């Protein structure tokens, strides 16, 4: 049969960011997909070679608007390894609180976009209304809505006092109530079930071979989460990864929907168990960074990887960032062949693509 090539993106209603897929079609079936990246390259890795290591925290936060604190945390942990700085336990708990808040709002944003992809406009607004409450909590705690600028090398800049702790717990309870009303609307909806169950299936073996990360990997039945690696006090907070077995788009939605509730539990536990004490260790601004460091952490979209190399100077020699979407593109190309053209937007959205992160 004759083959047609249809460009999908870089401008497409379901894509908030520019990714192009050249879809090779036979009739309505996708046979092959060729990705094209490079529309939003910002040269942040190079930019990081002109600032000193303290200034870079604010730069790496801007790699991704959604998971900014986790970028800052991962980068800081690399520098802390190199400078042998011990982060106070309270700072670690504070980092967990803000990281989980950003995971919550990222997943709520995604659930909204997902609803929007099926044409459920009202549901999209409901999810974003709930998300706004989470953003308000972030602003109350750190001063900014999304780019928190709260995590620095050595610890955190702002503490959570008793009033704020109570306020967060109160708001979270309300968010939970509202969320539990809205969540079944997307998971039990006939249209959503019909269009996502058995679509874009990624088997356990394929997910492993293609190096999928985050919710995509966990939806395929592999209980892999960078939070199990032992960074931060996740172990004390009783963290267990959320796993689904089906490996289709529906399972990816369920993983994220359940992770919102799980993050709420982690925040509550962290606020209860938070030890007293300092929130930041002193780091000399003129300290010289030498050697190599490497850190992996779990972002809402999956595992982020930082490599930092110093040259016995304040200014770093090299930073390498591998973001989760970069790792999830090969699995996406595995999911697409065999599906209908009409299902492509849903499958692409199911990996939660963040292209600005990927291209840095």
């Amino acid at each position, binding site marked *: 049969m004759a083959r047609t090539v249809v460009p999908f993106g870089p401008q497409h209603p379901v894509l908030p960011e520019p990714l192009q897929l050249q879809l090779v079609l036979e009739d309505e079936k996708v046979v092959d997909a060729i990705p094209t990246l490079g529309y939003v390259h910002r040269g942040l890795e190079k930019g990081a070679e002109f600032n000193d290591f303290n200034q870079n925290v604010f730069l790496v936060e801007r790699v991704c608007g959604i998971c900014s604190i986790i970028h800052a945390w991962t980068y800081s942990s690399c520098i802390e390894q190199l400078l042998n700085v011990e982060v106070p336990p309270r700072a670690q708990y504070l980092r967990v609180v803000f990281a989980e808040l950003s995971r919550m709002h990222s997943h709520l944003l995604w659930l909204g976009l997902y609803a929007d992809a099926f044409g459920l406009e009202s549901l999209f607004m409901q999810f974003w209304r709930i998300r706004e409450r989470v953003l308000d909590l972030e*602003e109350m705690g750190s001063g900014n809505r999304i780019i928190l600028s709260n995590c620095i090398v050595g610890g955190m800049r702002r503490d959570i006092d008793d009033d704020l702790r109570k306020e967060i717990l109160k708001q979270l309870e309300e968010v939970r109530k509202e969320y539990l009303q809205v969540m079944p609307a997307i998971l039990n909806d006939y249209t959503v079930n019909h269009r996502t169950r058995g679509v874009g299936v990624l088997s356990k073996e394929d997910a492993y071979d293609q190096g999928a990360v985050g919710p995509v990997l966990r939806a395929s039945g592999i209980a892999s989460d960078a939070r199990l690696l032992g960074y931060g006090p996740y172990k004390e907070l009783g963290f267990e990864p959320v796993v689904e077995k089906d490996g289709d788009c529906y399972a990816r939605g369920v993983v994220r929907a359940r992770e919102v509730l799980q993050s709420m539990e982690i925040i509550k536990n962290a606020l209860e168990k938070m030890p007293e004490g300092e929130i930041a260790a002193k780091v000399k601004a003129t300290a010289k960074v030498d050697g190599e460091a490497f850190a992996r952490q779990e972002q809402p979209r999956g595992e982020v990887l930082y490599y930092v190399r110093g040259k016995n100077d304040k200014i770093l020699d090299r930073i390498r960032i591998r973001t989760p979407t970069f790792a999830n593109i090969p699995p996406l190309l595995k999911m697409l062949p065999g599906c209908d053209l009409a299902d492509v937007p849903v499958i692409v959205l199911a990996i939660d693509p963040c292209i600005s992160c990927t291209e840095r």
Partner: protein
Amino acid sequence: MAKMLPTILKNLGSKPATRGYPYQVREPFQQTRGNLTIDLENCTLCTLCEKRCPTGAIKIQRKEGLWTFEDTRCVVCEACVEACPKDCLKAGTAWRKPVVEKGRQEWKVEVKKKEKSEEETS
């Protein structure tokens, strides 16, 4: 339909979830990083703020005593506020207003010699 009726009636009577910005502005939170207030009376031109600023919004020429600030470059991270030993820079909660052209403010700073002379005499 019967199932939806309570929700419909509730939504008819409830206020919208959104605000009519810019006519209706929410009060900023206590911790909000909104703007940077600059008061250079006690400035000693130590250039710590310039060194900490991640975006290069602050530029200082020590010889001429010039203190330059580009507000469109500033990301209100407050690194300079934490660095300033004389509390010349302060953070405010009100959001900055949108602008149509890039702003550049300059100050001529005269470093007070008083403290120094006291030290010298003692």
